[in-house]
């Protein structure tokens, strides 16, 4: 019976081709918009997540605290209170996984006729663990290199390509602040950070080398900041507490004094960013759903016209034995077919549009089966919802009135 009804509905739609196409257009646009918007939203979410992953997970940075001298308050990090000793001590804490002290400085690096201004970071081999970074070529420097303040360097991809072009930098010697450094490795590419910085534009050297030979200060052994990775996400809070009490103890701070350091939870920041894009993604979907709703109202409109136009047909069908539910089913099926067909075409357009946006504008897009399925489910729900009222009006007609209609 349903099969027959489907066929009837199909015939009636074909008989009114123009009207059917126009009705479907609303649905097509609605579904295409939903799929495209969700694809763009999820694409943005994906690139944010990738940036977060590239930063490393469960991260803290520990900064030197601010200093007040003669009423003048300096910014964070003004007083170099953190030392490599602090970093080593933090590494012993139970909740802490890996620790990397950082002594960064911007300087010119030179190889032959090429030179490049970049951030040279004095650190420990653990940096790679903390930042979840891998070596593309060669190797990282070792703990022994740190102990002996060896003049070795590991290059980021951007630096490597700017200084060496297509050549393999491993084993070659470049100059940083006049001192010769042997390149022992090249880092894998990481891309942009959340704030758009090129994370590959950097050179890593042993922290001791940076302290003694590159960025000497009047405070020997100090570091600008320490990157700390907790053992797991669950241990973040514990790690923070352990670090705070350890550093207060090591810095001999009296009970009522403020911390002379600052612990920042990077993962929390990243999660906020992820949250923001998620909200944006949901909002895009919601806005697109409104167009789906408008498409549904279009279907209702046309179905109402169709019911009025076919009053006589309804009368004839009733006169030869159609029950109310037969008439209801017929018009409901028409509405559902219209919306499903519209949805199908819309899904193709939406996916096509997403692919085109990616190809032409380079927008990150993610078309998931879920978004397509949700659009389909929504469209058929809209079809049934907005098809029901006209169908009920058709079914509620009195046979004798319907037959009399001219």
């Amino acid at each position, binding site marked *: 019976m349903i099969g027959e009804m489907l066929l009837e509905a199909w015939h009636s739609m074909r*008989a009114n081709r123009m009207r059917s196409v126009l009705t479907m257009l609303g649905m097509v646009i609605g579904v295409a918009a939903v799929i495209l918007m969700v694809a763009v939203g999820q694409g943005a979410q994906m690139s944010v997540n990738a940036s977060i992953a590239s930063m490393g997970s469960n991260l803290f940075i520990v900064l030197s605290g601010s200093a007040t001298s003669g009423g003048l308050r300096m910014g964070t990090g003004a007083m170099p209170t953190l030392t490599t000793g602090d970093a080593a001590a933090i590494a012993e804490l139970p909740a802490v996984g890996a620790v990397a002290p950082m002594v960064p400085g911007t300087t010119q690096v030179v190889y032959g006729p090429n030179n490049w201004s970049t951030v040279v970071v004095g650190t420990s081999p653990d940096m790679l663990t903390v930042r979840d970074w891998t070596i593309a070529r060669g190797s990282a420097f070792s703990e022994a290199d740190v102990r002996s303040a060896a003049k070795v360097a590991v290059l980021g991809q951007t630096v490597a390509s700017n200084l060496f072009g297509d050549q393999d930098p491993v084993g070659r010697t470049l100059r940083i602040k006049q001192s010769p450094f042997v390149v022992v490795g090249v880092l894998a590419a990481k891309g942009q950070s959340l704030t758009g910085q090129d994370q590959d534009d950097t050179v890593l050297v042993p922290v001791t080398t940076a302290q003694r030979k590159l960025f000497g200060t009047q405070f020997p052994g100090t570091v600008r900041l320490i990157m700390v990775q907790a053992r797991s996400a669950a241990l973040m809070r514990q790690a923070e507490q352990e670090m705070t009490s350890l550093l207060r103890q090591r810095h001999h701070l009296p009970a009522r004094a403020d911390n002379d350091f600052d612990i920042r939870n990077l993962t929390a920041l990243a999660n906020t960013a992820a949250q923001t894009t998620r909200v944006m993604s949901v909002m895009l979907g919601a806005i697109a759903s409104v167009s789906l709703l408008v498409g549904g109202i279009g279907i209702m409109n046309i179905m109402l016209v169709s019911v009025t136009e076919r009053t006589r*047909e309804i009368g*004839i069908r*009733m*006169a030869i034995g*159609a029950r109310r539910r037969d008439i209801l089913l017929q018009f409901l099926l028409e509405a559902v077919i219209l919306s499903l067909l519209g949805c199908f075409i819309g899904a193709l357009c939406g996916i096509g549009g997403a692919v085109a946006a990616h190809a032409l504008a380079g927008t990150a897009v993610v078309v998931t089966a879920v978004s397509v399925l949700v659009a389909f489910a929504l469209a058929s729900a809209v079809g049934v919802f907005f098809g029901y009222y006209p169908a009920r009006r058709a079914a509620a007609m*009195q046979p*004798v009135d319907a*037959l009399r209609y001219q």
Partner: protein
Amino acid sequence: MPAADVIVLQRLCKAYATAAGAVPVLRDIDLSIGAGESVAIMGPSGSGKSTLMNILGCLDVPTSGRYVLDGSDVSAMDGDTRARLRNRVLGFVFQGFNLLPRADLVDNVALPLLYAGVPSAERRSRAAETLARVGLKGFERYLPSQVSGGQQQRVAIARALVNRPRVILADEPTGNLDTHTSGDIMQLFSALNRADGITLVLVTHQEEVADYAHRRVMLVDGRIVSDQPIPRSASAVEVSR
């Protein structure tokens, strides 16, 4: 003669509600029609013929009174049961043919079988058989607009006939046809009445059409004013055969 009454009307009234109050259209109609009878209902315009026909056809409900069709009381039925009666017991033929313009002839004829739940293949073969029976073999794939008025009315009769009804109700079946075609259609009706024993009730205002029936009911102002058999000698059926 009639074994049992297939249609029984008792004190049947129908009034339409208007702004000026209820306007009675049918008043205290008492009528019994036996199985196999053929009855012509006649009367001037506005006498209530069509209203009576719609009630007989279960398309409309009486305001009061009883209507018993084929042994069951229609007045007490819900819409679905009446739809079932229209589908299985009755066949309706209209003045304006009332075919579905976009469906071909065989689909038009098969439509009642769709609502009777008959499987597709059987529907098609029964519809084609019935079309052949009303003399339209070979016209299965035509659209209603592609055949003449007389042929369209034959299709409508085939549609009324296809589900093997006990009663055929024809409301001015020849009203849109020329005299010659009218004669053909009426002969088809009386053949069905005689050969198949299908009860025939027709509304007309043409004497020569009414003459095909065996009994004539006159309706004036919603009341039956006369109800008498048409003398056999005057019956056009006898003359034509």
